[in-house]
């Protein structure tokens, strides 16, 4: 059983950072709902620093996801094939664009994913900073709480779009290649 370095980075980017962000986002929505219920908004829990730290961890995950995606995996995805290459399997972008049945995975899927994903760290970094620096105002202002909750939900929507197309693109034209890493060595029978 082996995996290549490029496949490993794709896994770390998508199933590590990205999927963990989506899971953490669901948790954040529940935490926000529960923490700022009318009966608990003035409780000690509403003033605890946990939310700020949680959102800051989500912001770190969001930045790690977009930075590895943009600067590590995307260049492998968009590498143009040398002239005369007939087998495009190692060139995902060119492979998708070569077939009418798959070209929209690039022209809509990847084109949307690569931009919409960058909205996530902007939204969640703001949410984390507000939860850390303006924790007291958050317990006092209904408007600020609503805005924070909206941005967390919207960041999840954007991350969901990016994650969905990432998964589908990886099925249609996976980024592969690189150095093989042997995970399990099976004895020949």
């Amino acid at each position, binding site marked *: 059983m082996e995996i290549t370095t490029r496949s490993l980075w794709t896994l770390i980017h998508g199933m590590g950072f990205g999927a963990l962000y989506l899971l953490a986002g669901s948790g954040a929505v529940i935490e926000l709902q529960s923490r700022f219920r009318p009966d608990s*908004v003035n409780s000690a829990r509403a003033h605890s620093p946990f939310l700020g730290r949680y959102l800051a961890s989500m912001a770190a995950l969001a930045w790690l996801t*977009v930075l590895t995606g*943009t*600067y590590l995996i*995307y*260049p492998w995805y*968009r*590498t143009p094939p040398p002239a005369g290459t007939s087998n495009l399997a190692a060139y995902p972008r060119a492979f998708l664009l070569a077939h009418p049945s798959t070209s929209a995975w690039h*022209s*809509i899927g990847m*084109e*949307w994913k*690569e*931009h*919409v994903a*960058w*909205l996530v760290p*902007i*939204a969640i*970094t*703001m949410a984390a*900073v*507000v939860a850390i*620096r*303006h924790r*007291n*105002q958050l*317990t*006092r*202002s*209904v*408007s*600020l709480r*609503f*805005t924070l909750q*909206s*941005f967390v939900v*919207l960041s999840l*929507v*954007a991350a969901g*779009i990016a994650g969905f197309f990432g998964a589908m693109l990886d099925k249609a034209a996976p980024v592969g290649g690189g150095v093989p890493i042997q995970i399990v060595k099976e004895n020949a029978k």
Partner: protein
Amino acid sequence: MSNATNANANSPELVPNGSAAAAVLSAGIGSFSLALINVIADRTAAFKSLLTFSKPVGPLSGVTTVAVVLWIAAWIFLDLLWKRRDLPLAKIGWSAIALFVLSLLLTFPPLVDLF
């Protein structure tokens, strides 16, 4: 969403909400900058080529870098401008949400192609 803030006037922690408002609105501005720069780059070949900060990444490197710089610049500017002021957080919050939703839509390629 209400304009009212459940502020306790005697609270020693009562501080102006301008800094929080600056953080919120700048997130909307940063998101919208990204979407807008992407639309302009898609329509203008020269601008698109100018945004290729990293050759392997292509114009995406410039679109995202410029948007992040504009977001941080807007945040610093608004924070300096508003930190001692109390502002209507409801209006600012809705404006930021509207800008973010517009950005989600404006990054959708079939909509970008309409411009």
